[in-house]
């Protein structure tokens, strides 16, 4: 019996890991290409949730979760062109300060626009409840999230591996100077990467709004976990982030099964152990510009 319970926690952890992935993957991409740790990433997640909840009231859930990430991705263009772009070659401390400041401004702006009280959001009727497969319990809504994450993941992977866009981006991560020497400007690619990254964060926010509290500080709560996932996975590695997100979800689930009080601490302990053994993270590549 014990083993079955454990297996259930592992499967549930994988599902949860998928959700972390939506936020962490964008954070990792933006860092890998631009060399900027986007501390405002959580703010876009929060905006995604708020816009989605607001739109759900008039347009319904289906339309809201599509429009909200697109709207946030468009905001991402402004963010990249007018703010982030100035800091790619600057002292990293400056970009950290700027994105941190932006995160605070966004949080306060949300408080002013939507008020400090949490928004109320519910799961659409058709996805309520759970289904039981074998002896495992799955929330129907989380299975929907899992399907969305899998689709997004496949899309991003194809984009990076099979398109000329992806080739330039991957080359830009390893050898930006060489890409420049070939006469390719990386900046439009960076704009696209930021759009993609913050759009994914917003998608995460939109899908998680019905099952978690929607309040102004929700972005600050998620950024730490996302950051841990990126560090564990290793910078610049697509599969590293995927692996790390799933691992974090599973380790947290198993820890809660045995020592509930240590659930949240477990992911930091995991990060600590991984960094001790592999300072570049699980699948982190040696990237010259960051060494």
């Amino acid at each position, binding site marked *: 019996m014990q083993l079955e*319970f454990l297996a*259930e*926690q592992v499967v*549930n*952890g994988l*599902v*949860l890991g998928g959700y972390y992935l939506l936020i962490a993957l964008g954070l990792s991409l933006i860092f890998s290409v631009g060399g900027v*740790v986007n*501390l405002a990433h959580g703010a876009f997640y929060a905006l995604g949730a708020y816009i989605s909840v607001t739109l759900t009231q008039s347009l319904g859930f289906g339309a809201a979760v599509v429009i909200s990430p697109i709207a946030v991705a468009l905001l991402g263009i402004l963010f990249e062109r007018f703010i982030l772009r100035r800091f790619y*070659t600057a*002292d*990293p*401390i400056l970009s*950290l*300060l700027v994105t*941190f400041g932006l995160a*605070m401004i966004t949080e*306060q702006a949300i408080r002013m626009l939507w*008020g*400090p*009280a*949490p928004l*109320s*959001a*519910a*799961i659409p009727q058709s996805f*309520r*409840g*759970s289904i039981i497969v074998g002896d495992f*319990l799955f*929330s129907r*809504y*989380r299975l929907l999230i899992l399907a969305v994450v899998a689709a997004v993941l496949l899309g991003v992977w194809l984009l990076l591996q099979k398109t000329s866009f992806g080739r330039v981006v991957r080359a830009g991560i390893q050898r*930006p*100077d060489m890409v420049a020497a070939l006469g390719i400007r990386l900046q439009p690619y960076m704009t696209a990467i930021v759009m993609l990254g913050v759009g994914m964060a917003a998608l995460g926010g939109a899908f998680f709004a*019905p*099952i*978690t*509290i*929607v*309040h102004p*500080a929700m972005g*600050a*709560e998620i*950024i730490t976990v996302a*950051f841990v996932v990126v560090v564990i996975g290793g910078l610049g590695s697509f599969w590293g982030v995927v692996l790390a997100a799933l691992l974090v979800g599973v380790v*947290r*689930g198993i820890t*809660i*099964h045995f020592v*509930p*009080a240590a*659930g*949240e601490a477990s992911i930091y302990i995991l990060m600590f152990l991984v960094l001790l053994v592999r*300072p*570049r993270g699980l699948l982190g590549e040696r*990237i010259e*510009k*960051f*060494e």
Partner: protein
Amino acid sequence: MTRYSRRTLLQASAALAGASSLGFPSIVRGQGDKIRIGHLTPLTGFLGTLGTYAQLGIRLAQEEINASGGVMGRQLDVLSEDSVNPATAATKAQRMLDQDGVSVLMGEINSASALTIMQVAERNKRLYMQIGARSDALRGKNCNRYTFHVDIPSTVMVNAVGRALVRDNMMKDKKFYTLTADYIFGHDLARAARAFFDANGGKVAGDELVATDVTDFSPYLLKIRQAKPDVVCSNLAGNQVTNLIKQYAEFGLPYPIVGFNLNTADAWAAGQGNLSGTWPTVWYHTLDVPGSKAFVATFTKKYGKVPENHAWIEYISLKMMVQAMAETKSTETDKLIPYFEQQTQFDILKGRKGYFRNWDHQLMQEAYPFTVKPADQIKDPYDMLSLGAAIPEPNESLETIALTKEQNPCAM
């Protein structure tokens, strides 16, 4: 490109992420010959939602008092800040006394922060009206002469809901699975709950501690399903409650859920159709008392939303403090303490008046169990709760639901 190493970057980001937990300062200052009151409440973190309501409540009271001429002809100046965490709360309280010249301290929701402010009050021999923290220990073994407690303590909330459960045949021989917030308040609530179960034949099938920053409850829900309890019981706080309720509804577990702590803002945030069960409250905006209705009307007009229980409690707390200052014609702690200790009756916008019990400085007042209205009876998102009759009953003493001297080891 010139760059710092990856390592530097990681260190710096970690430092900044850490700094983000310090929160925003929210400083409201005034000067002159005003009576200053130091007010601390969490505006960020898992109790931040409640704290923002608290701040609106005390501001409304301040404006009303100042508009009607202030206290002893002097204007009131409430210096209100984010208490952030227990250590920062104590530092800010000390600074308010040393540098900002406040006469008394008020506020708090977080029991751990309230405890550190109580220590500051005692060290400085200055009055502290502890408004919104509910841990029994604060008025029990940690009580001190300088602190007065307004909100209902854990045991009273347990009694309010527990009595309703006994009445509904949901206590004797039932297996409870409890989730407990992992800090002083949750531990306290769990202890009170266990005492009630023991006394009334309830059984505990499982009890898990939940860190205050948990947002995903799915692993806990799976454990609950494995344990197959009769009733799930929440001893959680703040955002935890909202997240649990949302995800409990998401997973659709068949066991009824009850809880010994819920603030109405947490219930509103849970969304329609998600909340069920029986919960306790200290006040609700539909309370049928003229004073309460007037307060709700003024608050709603000013802020565009109905007040939450923390807004109400801050409002009546400042009114009580001002009444004490006006009656004693003093802002001195030595004059104010005896005034409260005489068990002076205060209008707290409820059916019955309240008073601070002299031996543990706890406000004696009514409490209410509430249940959730069926979906078709809910008129607006704020109208989801159906308030039960006040406990204790009108012919009983207010002290019947309070902690007894044996339960509350307070020695001042």
